[in-house]
């Protein structure tokens, strides 16, 4: 009787009940483990709570994008780690994308040598475990780079050494005005582009938007330098002697070798996968499309920009999103070579000093989840923008 009613007459309930049962079962499992954990922790005199985030961390971190030293809180240390994770991920994604596109296109090159080199690159770097590549780049770099006193000098303003790549430090006055001018430039470029699109669609006029945008981006900030009191000076790194044979550089900014090695390894590795996505995307566009575009009189650049790429991107973006997510998650291998990312700083040192494993691991997992979901949302938005708009 009951089932007859649910099965046939009440579709809503029929759909809802299995889902509700699943959710409840899942919840009860979570509650079971949570309760158990709590009781066990209680038995062993371990308290649960997030109050430790406000306590003084009392350990230092090599490399931080915000002001930090051991007198700051664990919460602040978490932020330092998070920013470092984001930094290496952004750098990694940036270079992986550029290299991936270049290698992917090269594999389709008519030039035998270029195509073969690209193929070998992909096959080698795709098939070696990432952790080994990280160690390779790190220890290879450490062995290959000179000690500070023999650092590789770039016009005496920048030095590459085993202790890091020392670059000049930017010292701004009125940086806020400069930042505003950049934002203003981008807003202007947006309006120029939409105006150009209108002109093209309504009157068939071609406006060289690329050059105009570029000039805008240079001119508007330049005005702030000339008239609004913005200025920029550099602090150059200088060799400093610490003992008869120990040297370092003072002043400037040090890009630590751990960051360089990690970013290099992550982008070299992920680029191979992106290259294959790019190749698949380009090959996935029908030959007829190019021929049709040529037959209506578009030139080679226009064919690539207006016909091939929009269609190829639809194939490239979804798997590339996965690669971006992978890269971000793989950055957690940083701990192996002492790059202070969230895993090393927070799930490592902070966990050890506080002993709060459950709290810290939960926060770290949630953080990665949030990072991944943010990337997914952005890439899905971009994918939708690029998808076929059926009329």
């Amino acid at each position, binding site marked *: 009787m*009951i089932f007859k*009613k649910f099965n046939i007459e*009440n579709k809503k*309930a029929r759909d809802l*009940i299995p889902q*509700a*049962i699943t959710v*409840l079962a899942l*919840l*009860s499992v979570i*509650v*079971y483990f949570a*309760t*158990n954990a*709590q*009781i*066990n*922790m209680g*038995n*062993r*005199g*371990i308290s649960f709570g997030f109050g430790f985030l406000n306590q003084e961390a*009392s*350990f*230092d*971190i*090599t490399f931080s994008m915000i002001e930090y030293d*051991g007198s700051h809180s664990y919460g602040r240390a978490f932020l330092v780690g998070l920013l470092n994770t984001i930094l290496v991920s952004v750098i990694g994604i940036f270079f992986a994308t550029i290299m991936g596109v270049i290698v992917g296109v090269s594999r389709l090159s008519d030039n035998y040598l270029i195509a073969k080199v690209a193929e070998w690159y992909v096959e080698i770097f795709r098939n070696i475990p990432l952790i080994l590549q990280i160690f390779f780049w790190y*220890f290879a770099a*450490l*062995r290959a780079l000179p*000690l500070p006193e023999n650092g590789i000098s770039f016009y005496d303003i920048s030095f590459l050494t*085993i*202790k890091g790549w020392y670059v000049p430090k930017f010292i701004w006055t009125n940086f806020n005005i400069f930042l505003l001018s950049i934002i203003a430039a981008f807003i202007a470029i947006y309006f120029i582009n939409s105006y150009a699109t209108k002109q093209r669609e309504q009157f068939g006029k071609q406006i060289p938007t690329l050059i105009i945008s570029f000039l805008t981006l240079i001119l508007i900030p330049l005005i702030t330098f000339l008239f609004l009191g913005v200025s920029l000076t550099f602090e150059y790194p200088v060799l*400093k002697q*610490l*003992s*008869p*044979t*120990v040297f*370092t*550089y*003072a002043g400037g900014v040090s890009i630590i*070798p*751990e960051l360089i090695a990690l970013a290099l390894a992550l982008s070299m590795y992920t680029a191979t996968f992106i290259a294959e996505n790019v190749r698949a995307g380009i090959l996935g566009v029908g030959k007829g499309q190019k021929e049709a575009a040529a037959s209506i009189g578009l030139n080679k650049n226009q064919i690539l920009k207006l016909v091939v790429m929009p269609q190829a991107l639809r194939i490239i973006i979804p798997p590339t999103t996965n690669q971006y997510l992978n890269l971000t998650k793989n950055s957690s291998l940083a*701990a*192996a*070579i*002492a790059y*202070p990312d969230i895993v*090393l700083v927070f799930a*490592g*040192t902070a*966990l*050890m*000093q*506080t*002993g*709060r*494993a459950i709290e810290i691991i939960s926060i770290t997992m949630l953080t990665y989840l949030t990072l991944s979901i943010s990337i997914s949302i952005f890439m899905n938005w971009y994918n939708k923008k690029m998808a076929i708009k059926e009329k």
Partner: protein
Amino acid sequence: MIKSIKTWILVGFASLLLVACGQGGGGAGSKKSKTLDNTKKAGFVKCGVSQGLPGFSNADEAGNWTGIDVDVCRAVAAAVLGDADKVKYTPLSAKERFTALTSGEIDVLARNTTWTLSRDADIGLTFVGVNFYDGQGFMVRKNSGINSVNDFKNGISACTNTGTTTELNMRDFFNSKNISYEPIAFEKADEVVAAYDAGRCDTYTTDKSGLAAQRTKMSNPDEHKVLPETISKEPLGPVVRQGDAVWEDIVRWSLNTMIEAEEYGVNSSNASSLKDSENPAIKRLVGSEGELGAAFGLDNDWSLRIIEQVGNYGESYKKHIADTGILPNRGPNQLWTKGGILYVPPAR
């Protein structure tokens, strides 16, 4: 009808919760030692050790663990199970060690772990004693011209391990000297050594015993030296879970027995022949007087087995630390009667 099904689900859910609470609740607080019972049932002592620190806990090519930390676990196994070899070793990183202990994956943590207030009081652990008095020091290259910590200058880079007290001591030290420094912290000791050896950092800081042990792994050990200063107290000792007082006592007195045996000159070769000794303290140690084992639920030969199978503290130190060239001089790890600070309460 929907309502009644919902009710059933709710009832089921609630009863599941009750079961969950019921299962989690048992266990602690009883007077008997659950850990001891489980160890006897399993037939081996679950012991957490380092991932390889010569002298303390290190596995040879055949996978046999040796070291003074390992000997603590062997002593417990000899006392509880009658056979010092009945130990299951779990190599742990600095980060994993306490979680492994509190979660019950191991029952004794003998992994060159520094006894501190927060570790003892805050995270469900109990330190049972000290089996090595250590202190943090610095290693530098001999040709660096650095002869003391007073030669350190602003901008020095220091390599160390993450998740250890060294990271905190390093900050305290450099702060007190008003020196700005670059801390580079690796997860595993092997990477610290490799990075320091390559020249990434100017100094390598950890416990002095660790420095001495790791120096042997450098590409050219003679190029490095340990600075004379000691910047911290690092009493290293075995740790157990909080809440099992009997097990805690067993581990504590297994360690104490080794030290007390050295004090009374009882060692692995003469122990059984001392059953009729005239000194009652020795007789208690070899189990021919008193009923000391009964206090833990062990037989009376528990301490004799420790001395016979593992040896006394001096034998253990000589075999693993002195004869291997790590720290030939016992320093503070000498008996109190011989100018050191090893002093254990009497076994009576």
